[in-house]
């Protein structure tokens, strides 16, 4: 059990990669603080993680033996984020790992000059500033303990550009920059910060995943055929599973990577090798 006795906070834990990480970490002995927004947002054209989905993730983790605390909070809300962290510390006394997984893929599908002020602000507020708020709330606790691991779930969009995804690409590039800067700030205190960059992850119905189809919708790729189309860019001729990302996050979270900080780990089936 690689995370025995550790407490892990995961944002965007209601479904998809967040749920995959939560259940994997629970199986490795971690106790979990699971956070998601629990309601939809105007301006994001698809349903966000719900309270029920978050509860479902919690139940799966408890079944694996974990102690679980679920918290509904919006990562744009500094006060809500702070109070979520306080509650977690009341319950568990410490926080060892933070997985910044919350993020949106839409509104997208426009050229740079067509993106509105509000769309741009919303995307950056969640995908980039949300991670910054979480780090700002959790890092003091990790520094106090002089240990901790922060895993930022970025994207291949953090290392290359995608057409008509300027906000998302800018936010994920920003997240990688944040990762490196934070790694340097915290390295003297034994706190590590790394990024993992998933490529095209299959929407797993068991995880209520829907990110890939939302990306397809933004690009006007017909949903249903989109998996075949995305496959063309995959040297390994397979879409990724959320569990593949969870495996990389687990390694970065645990002591096996204790000398690893400020790095970017691509989990993309060879996409970046081209």
């Amino acid at each position, binding site marked *: 059990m690689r995370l025995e006795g550790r407490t892990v906070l995961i944002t965007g834990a209601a479904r998809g990669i967040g749920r995959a990480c939560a259940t994997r970490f629970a199986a490795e002995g971690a106790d979990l603080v699971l956070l998601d927004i629990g309601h939809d947002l105007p301006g994001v054209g698809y349903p966000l993680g719900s309270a029920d989905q978050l509860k479902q993730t919690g139940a799966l983790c*408890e*079944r694996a*033996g974990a*102690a679980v*605390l679920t918290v509904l909070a919006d990562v744009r809300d500094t006060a809500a984020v702070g109070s979520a962290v*306080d509650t977690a*510390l*009341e*319950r*568990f*006394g*410490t926080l060892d790992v933070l997985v910044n997984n919350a993020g949106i893929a839409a509104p997208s599908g426009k050229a740079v000059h067509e993106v509105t002020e509000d769309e741009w602000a919303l995307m950056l507020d969640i995908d980039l500033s949300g991670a910054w708020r979480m780090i700002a709330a959790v890092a003091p*606790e990790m520094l*106090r303990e002089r240990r901790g691991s922060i895993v930022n779930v970025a994207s291949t969009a953090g290392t290359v550009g995608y057409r008509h995804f300027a906000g998302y690409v800018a936010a994920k590039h920003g997240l990688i920059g944040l990762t490196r800067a934070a790694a340097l700030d915290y390295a003297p205190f034994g706190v590590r910060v790394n990024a993992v960059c998933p490529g095209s992850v299959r929407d797993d119905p068991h995880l209520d995943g829907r990110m890939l189809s939302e990306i397809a919708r933004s690009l006007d790729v017909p949903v249903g055929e989109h998996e075949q189309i995305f496959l063309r860019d995959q040297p390994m001729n397979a879409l990724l599973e959320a569990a593949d990302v969870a495996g990389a996050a687990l390694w970065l979270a645990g002591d096996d990577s204790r000398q690893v900080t400020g790095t970017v780990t691509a989990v993309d089936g060879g996409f970046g090798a081209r």
Partner: protein
Amino acid sequence: MTVETHSLIVRLPGGADRLPPGVLCWRRTAASPESVRAVARREAARPMHPAAAPVRRVLVTAGDVADLVIVADRNAVSRSRLEQGFEQDFEQNLDVVAAPWAATAPAATAVSWGQGVPGQARSFETVPVTGGEREFLAAAALVLACYEARDRVTFAVVPGADAEARLVTAEVSGRTVADLLAPPVVTTAGEAVLGVVVTSCDGPDEYVAHHRPPYPVTAHVELGGATIVRVRWSFTDLVHPATARRFADQVSRLAGRLGQVAPDLDAGRLDLLTSAETAEVLRLGDGGARPPGEQVVARRFREIAVRRPGAVALCDGTEQWTYARLDRESGAMAAGLRAYGVGPGVPVGICLDVGAALVVSQLAVLKAGGTYVPMDPGHPADRLRYLADDARLRLVIGSAATFPDAGAMTVVEPAELGREPAGPEPPAADDGARAAYVIYTSGSTGRPKGVVVPQRNVCALVDAVRDDLRLGPDDTWTLFHSSAFDFSVWEIWGCLLTGGRLVLVPYWTRRDSDEFYDLLVRERVTVLNQTPSAFAQLVRTDERRRGELALRLVVFGGEALNVRMLAPWFARHPSATCRIVNMFGITETTVHVTSETVTPSAVSSGSRSVGRALPGWSVSVRDAHGRVLPPGVPGEIVVGGAGVATGYRGRPGLTAQRFVAGGTTAGDRVYRSGDLGRLHPDGRLDHLGRLDHQVKVRGHRIELDEIRSVILDLPGVREAAVRFRAGDDGDGRIEAYAVLEGATTEQVLEACRRILPGYMVPSSVTALAGLPMTANGKVDMSALPDPAVAPAPAASQEGDDALAGRLSAIWAEVLKADVAMTTNFFTAGGTSLGVVRVLARMQERGLPKVPVRQFYRNSTLAQFVDLVRTTIDG
């Protein structure tokens, strides 16, 4: 900052319904009713955040089984208050208390025997102990006394969860088991390394008194009635995990035994380690099998001479000796020795300074089957006479003109032997057990004793390190040390038996670090052996000179190394280019015993490790009864294996006392070194000094009693005491005190100079009306006054110029005493090392370089000032 917590797990008989409404708690479901308690324990052990509420409740349920876990800040909620943890108004009525151990638990004490690994704390339970609280406390006292190497120990007992901790002391020496089982004596405030927390556990509720151990070693003893149900041990990372386990097992085992043995049994006779544990500790200190190899020195030398006859073996000034020539000339000399009756086992004195003749003579004696007895021509005549007499020498190779009246002994010049061309050389003796040499060391009886070392030991030494140190024909060594110091055995045979080139360092070059430095650069020396104090001078010279050294290996021996002095060396010479190896050794175990490569990180940590035993050698640390002690515990270093000498020449009693049975295999002898050390859990050894007051001065082991008995033997001396005072620069001074009846201190010093070698002559002799005594009638060394110093300088004699002032300041620094213009450097305690220091400081302060030889000839301050002035003017 962490919150100290304690916890109580309460089984709710009626399930979760017993919990009064309105009590806030976290809820958690366990997988099954059977796993409820396990989950509850995990919740109880969870830390509490400093900013969180001082109480946390977690309700763990499965079916109709429910456990309420109450975790509270130890400094906010007492044990009895914790009982009411499920009351509704609990948080409003906290009783702020200090944890019971607050006064006795140290914040961060070092555990002298801990050898901990940062981050590796250990907690575990030991099997139920037979016996009760009294047996446990007695056992804990005994084991702690062993680890702390003391007869009297202090530790904390927390009797019951809310009771204040009491510090108790226990005397373990000379006590019976019944004495130990008596209630311990309560003492006044202090701090404890070990704390024993005793609580009762009745019924299904579970109380844990602490989740972070309050003491470096905490034993939480849970009593069920009068018997111990369980002991939870917590060791912080100040204690090595392996030591933690052993400590806990020893206490548990001993507690069980104390109830079974006769009450009048001497507690000191109880063994603390099982035979399996003893075997394990012995294995730790075992350097492994002796590598195979030829066991006769002369035959080994011959192999190399035959293989590479043209290679240079010796370099004596401008003269080079090939292996073939060394082989030929030593063969001729061996023939000459045989003509003098030298044969198997016959001792032959060699009284020569460092030079080719010295090496040829040693090899010739071995070729003739004899045993060489090195004698330093610089030692006083009395000492040389004593050695010749004690070793029953009939023949000495040396200078007949200078050797003291030989009596029935023949003194023959090396040149006179081997003038005849040798006939075909008879094969070298094939017995590796035959003595190669006898080297004299200080003796506790007041007279030096001869250590008899067989040939196979010398060969084993070379085999043990040859591969690790990569010794071979490309190496150039120096012969720096006097042949009377066994470091030279290593220099000569370590080099010649691996095919290297040995550069012989002349007397004056050894005393002038600049000249020696020039030699190292000029001869491209690769392997250098030094005592740390000599090397310290070389480091300073190197800093100043920045020459191109070819050194790839520096071996330290002869005295304890203070690794911190190496920092400037490593700054110029990375350990990848020049390896630094510290070796601990004893004449009685053939020069070296252990070896440790010193790295820059060891320098920053100030390590005292001398490393692991060499292959073929073994080390263990034992108590006064010869019992093996576990890692961490200080005791006498005992050495076994391939280096153990035959014994002391002509002293069967002393030999039997120091060379005893007790090796890892039956029949093996081990040598009790009298050195204090402790083993690490990985088998490395820390050297901690001498058990008695034998001391080392500039690499020479000196028994202070030997000096004392010389002084006491003088007419006009009634009592005497000699002490050694370590200096902060790694050097030290021998100070003598005497109660005189007619003699003067000057006469005493004069006599010491006549009888003792220079390094044993006291720096000062102070006359006292009587020696201070301790309560039990021994001389109280710590109560001796500071030594008498030269009288304060008269104003008229004080130098009237700045030069005299600067020079007298340097002398005063080096001599650590006031100096006057009449002060003689050597009479005032100055040594050859002191000379080098004075010259180094002069150079640092921009004063001219003065030849060492001139220093010896101008040894009063007035003469010295004149000398320096002449140098400046000239």
